[in-house]
């Protein structure tokens, strides 16, 4: 694992397999919070932060508690002869970890930095049900990423989401003043815009890495 591998993962997650445009993760906040640039930036920052943290924690939980690997801590704790396979608990374990992590982060930020809490505060609870966070955690496992690779992937996926969100917010602020057919106002035109942006992002799939 060298720097080049990490760069490939990062560029891949931001541009080629962008969470919004190519993987369809986090669509609800993408449409819901992209009306204004300020709130888009706040939401993006909160997602990057929680996604990096969640990738770290879920990777550790999977490899030390759930997976049938020699590293599983239950082997030593209960002196088992072979490691137990608890991977079927993946979905339940991950969603609980993410939900409690979000709660915890919210409390810590509230205590340590009231200014940051004020700007991120309202977006944090929304993140629990953001499928992009759970999606990133599950993708890290599916793609057999190593520990550092998982953290980089989580961070880059969050950055890709933020990029999509901020670009969209910039366009939607302008769209408010545009003359749009009444039926397409609001969510429909946002989706059509997202479609056009996804066509642009499709261009990145020609990128040759490595």
């Amino acid at each position, binding site marked *: 694992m060298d720097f080049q591998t990490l760069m490939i993962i990062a560029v891949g997650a931001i541009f080629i397999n962008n969470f919004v445009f190519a993987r369809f993760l986090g669509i609800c906040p993408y449409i819901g919070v992209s009306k204004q640039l300020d709130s888009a930036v706040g939401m993006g920052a909160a997602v990057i932060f929680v996604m990096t943290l969640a990738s770290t924690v879920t990777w550790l939980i999977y490899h030390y508690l759930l997976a049938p690997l020699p590293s599983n801590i239950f082997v030593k704790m209960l002196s088992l002869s072979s490691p137990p396979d608890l991977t079927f608990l993946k979905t339940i374990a991950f969603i609980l970890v993410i939900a409690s992590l979000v709660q915890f982060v919210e409390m810590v930020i509230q205590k340590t930095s009231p200014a940051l809490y004020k700007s991120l505060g309202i977006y944090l609870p929304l993140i629990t049900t953001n499928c992009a966070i*759970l999606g990133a955690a*599950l993708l890290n496992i599916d793609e057999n990423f190593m520990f550092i690779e998982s953290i980089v992937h989580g961070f880059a996926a969050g950055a890709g989401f933020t990029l999509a969100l901020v670009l969209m917010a910039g366009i939607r602020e302008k769209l408010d003043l545009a003359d749009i057919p009444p*039926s397409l106002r609001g969510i429909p035109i946002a989706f*059509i815009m997202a*479609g056009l942006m996804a*066509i642009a992002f499709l261009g990145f799939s020609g990128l040759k890495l490595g």
Partner: protein
Amino acid sequence: MSLFKVFSKGLYDQNPVFKQALGLCPTLAVTGSIENGLGMGIASTFVLLCSNLLVSLVRKGVPNKIRIPIYIVVIASFVTIVDLAMAGFVPDLHKSLGIFVPLIVVNCMILGRAESFAGKNNVGLSLLDGLGMGVGFTLALVVIGAIREFLGNGSLLGIPVIGAGYEPVLIMILPPGAFLTIGFVLGFFNWLENKRNA
């Protein structure tokens, strides 16, 4: 509200996708073909029915403050059952739906029904509500899947329906096609609504 109304409101009036814009991630991600959309719809309907059933059974014993974590654990358990069952019985479909099977957990439609209906109503009504919403969700996925498969592949349910001379609009089964289709479909329903109110 009559029993039939409890069931039928999910089909059109409060359709989760077309009217409430809920559960959009799977709606966009798995509608490249009717088959995938149908599979996803049935899996989500099953989870929704089971979670509505269990939530309405335990609603009186659940403390108000921790009801959301409890609902999430209930939903996650049923999603795990569906995930394992699909991997065993329909491995091809399971593979093509990919991470969107475990991601049914965070489908806001399911948590939304638990919170707004099953947590307040009895078992029978909750089952009816879950069935209606689930069928409405499946219907939406099939409609969008049909549009995308027809335009992007010239087929319906894998059977070619347009002559060989048809040049498929490939973009429709690629990611951008999902966004464009749902944008225009939502616009169409807005247009219908505006016309009805006018």
